[in-house]
């Protein structure tokens, strides 16, 4: 019996819409992990030297 490949699922002649490809799922997971890592670095770490809030505080410090 022939196994259904990812390519088969993407074929346009299927009646139902194609599934989201694996590379998109992996990319979305990586993006979410990176965003969470970035946010947690700002909230809990001492390395939060980037981002909009840092920009604001930095500007206020220098204005004084």
């Amino acid at each position, binding site marked *: 019996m022939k196994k259904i490949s990812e390519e088969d699922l*993407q074929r346009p002649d299927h009646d139902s819409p194609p599934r989201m*490809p694996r590379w998109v799922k992996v990319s979305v997971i990586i993006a979410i992990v990176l965003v969470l890592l970035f946010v947690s670095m700002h909230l809990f770490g001492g390395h939060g030297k980037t981002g909009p809030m840092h920009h604001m505080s930095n500007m206020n410090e220098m204005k004084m």
Partner: protein
Amino acid sequence: MTMTPRLRKLALTAHITFSVGWIGTVIAYVALALAAKTSQDVQMVRAAWIAMEFTGWYVIVPLSLASLLTGIIMSLGTSWGLFRHYWVLIKLLLTALCTIVLVLHMQQVSFLAGVAAKTDSADLGGLPSELFHPGAGLLVLLVIVILSVYKPRGKTRYGWRKQQEQLID
């Protein structure tokens, strides 16, 4: 609306030129940021900040907007579409994200360039590092290049629906 082959080539040439220019100037910007961070010469640090401000506003921001605009024109004027393929959609989202972050961040660069121009030489060491944003931006631009070259498979639901409509017609 599909572009004629001649118009499509013109739009593609413009899109590649603006996009490659964007990446090139970000690399030059990283070199300036490195100079601003590592140099012991006060004049060099000041010059690097002022150059970063000018390069950012007058070269990188216009190139990013032009790249985004020509990319949208290319997508809408060809069979690829803007929302039909995942690689086009992700490329659009990443380009828009880069452009928005760039414009927001450039306001801080302008402020810091002003500080560098006025501050006493002894205090210039207190200026923050300017390597994170261009470094991260460069990585995202490389991902965009990879998507453009490899064009990985995958149609969105919208793209599939549009294709079914065309088959019926």
